[in-house]
């Protein structure tokens, strides 16, 4: 059986990792399913999605392909989401790619009105729900959601927060219950999140499909750095926010440096000025000359080349929002040893690829860095194992196959009357 699948997600040019994720997944998923993209009319996709090896193209079995009069059979059909209600009965399943940002606002009302299978990229949706617009004279989505999840105390708390009497407890309340309650089934990238979801709704089908990533091999950018060619470089990547714990990483680095003057720290990305002020910290630690900030890197290829420039990647996140870190996987894909906090999804990374330390344990962080800085052989071994892990478990073709198998199983399960 070939599924007729509606695929709802932010797509490039939307500047979110989930749009890039979908751009990588869609061509592969379209080789196994009759895929139709449900798009954001306010931000139409700039990529022309094709299924280059789709054996189904010759059969024109997609219910929408004929109706939409697609000129090229290899082009994956698209419909704007406001037309979706007229078509939703034609699909076997609808797959929503949901995350914790306003890039998902266009799909949110449809997700609640036309339940489907939700890939929950973030367990916590608090920031998204809080930022949603609301119509005057009606309860805000924030109050509705807090009320749905926590009853009357939730409504009282929402009123306090909306009246600015207290700040939102971003990481204490996930605000995802209403989506879990409505959805036909849930997908996540980690067993950690799957277990949290099961605790709330043991009756909902919940499956784990790993995050998507391909091994990379790109030339480094050491020539762009004012450091010796044989420098040992520790790096952190992504926008620097408070919960990325860069201050702790830099303090551990500053402790190490007197014994290892050829050691440098590369920050791939830019600090969020509202959350992190880097300069005073560098001055306090006296490491201005040993730290380089690339600034925001808009181009993915350059971003990947910076990973290949580093010897060790530090990817700390506390608290965790139940996220799967693309940065962590990108480090493994680039065959770089990785240091993470041992919690959430990060605990599921194989020990052969990653050094895992207790969250916020500064001594353990120092020791892990010391181990890797002084042991190039271990760095190489961890890096090789990481890249093999990505090759075996995270490549788009493998993930697309897992999606297809899981969705087909779900379809049979859901269509069997109980």
């Amino acid at each position, binding site marked *: 059986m070939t599924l007729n699948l509606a695929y709802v997600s932010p797509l490039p040019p939307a500047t979110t990792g989930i749009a890039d994720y979908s751009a990588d997944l869609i061509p592969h998923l379209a080789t196994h399913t009759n895929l139709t993209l449900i798009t954001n009319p306010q931000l139409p996709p700039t990529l022309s999605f094709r299924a280059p090896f789709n054996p189904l193209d010759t059969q024109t079995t997609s219910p929408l392909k004929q109706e939409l009069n697609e000129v090229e059979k290899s082009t994956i059909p698209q419909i704007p989401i406001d037309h979706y209600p007229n078509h939703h009965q034609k699909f076997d399943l609808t797959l929503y790619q949901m995350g914790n940002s306003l890039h998902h606002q266009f799909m949110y009302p449809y997700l609640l009105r036309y339940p489907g299978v939700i890939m929950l990229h973030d367990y916590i949706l608090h920031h998204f729900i809080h930022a949603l617009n609301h119509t005057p004279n009606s309860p805000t989505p924030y109050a509705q959601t807090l009320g749905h999840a926590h009853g009357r105390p939730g409504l009282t708390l929402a009123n306090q927060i909306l009246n600015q009497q207290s700040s939102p407890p971003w990481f204490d309340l996930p605000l995802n219950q209403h989506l879990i309650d*409505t959805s036909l089934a849930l997908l996540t990238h980690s067993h950690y999140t799957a277990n949290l979801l099961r605790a709330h709704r043991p009756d909902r089908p919940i499956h784990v499909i790993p995050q998507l990533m391909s091994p990379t091999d790109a030339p480094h950018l050491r020539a762009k750095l004012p450091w010796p060619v044989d420098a040992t470089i520790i790096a952190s990547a992504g926008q620097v926010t408070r919960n990325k714990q860069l201050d702790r990483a830099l303090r551990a680095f500053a402790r190490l440096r007197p014994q290892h003057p050829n050691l440098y720290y590369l920050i791939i990305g830019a600090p969020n000025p509202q959350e992190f002020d880097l300069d005073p910290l560098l001055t306090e630690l006296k490491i201005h000359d040993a730290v380089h900030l690339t600034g925001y890197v808009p181009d993915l290829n350059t971003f990947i080349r910076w990973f290949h420039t580093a010897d060790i990647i530090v990817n700390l996140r506390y608290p965790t929002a139940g996220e799967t870190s693309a940065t962590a996987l990108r480090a493994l894909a680039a065959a770089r040893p990785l240091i993470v906090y041992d919690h959430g999804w990060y605990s599921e990374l194989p020990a052969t690829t990653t050094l895992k330390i207790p969250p916020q344990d500064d001594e353990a962080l120092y020791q892990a860095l010391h181990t890797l800085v002084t042991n190039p052989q271990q760095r190489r071994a961890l890096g090789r194992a990481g890249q093999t892990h990505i090759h075996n478990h995270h490549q788009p073709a493998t993930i697309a196959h897992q999606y297809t198998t899981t969705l087909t199983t779900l379809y049979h399960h859901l269509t069997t009357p109980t």
Partner: protein
Amino acid sequence: MKNTKPLPPNLQQQIDTTPATTDAHTKYQQLQSSWDITEPTLVSHTPLLGPLITRFRQVWLNIATRWYLQALRQQQIEFNSLTVQQINHHHHQLNQHQDHLKHALDWLVTQSQHNHDHTHDLAQIRLQLRNLNQRLDHLESLIDQHQADKS
């Protein structure tokens, strides 16, 4: 409410101890005890002559102003008493309305949860119905083909 989770203790405490709510409760309690105006007791801390001064003031008060102040005090007590009774009555009504509102909000939350569950169930039934229709169409086409083959 079948499916609501309690708030974490720190957040529950936060909503229970809002400054405005605590302040209003304290003032209401003060009101219950301060409506009745009691006559002040005259004292003097002057050494040796103190009791004499106090006695003198008491006598003077009785002669000069008690008849006037007593009437005023009585009027004020009556006014305070009526006011506090009225406030207590409204307070009681407010509590009743709050209880009704609480029940209504609980009912709304339950309805919201039922609504989400029904949306889920409806979507699943719709999917099953669609699947059954497809299978029925397939069976009908097989029967048609079979009959065409026979004739």
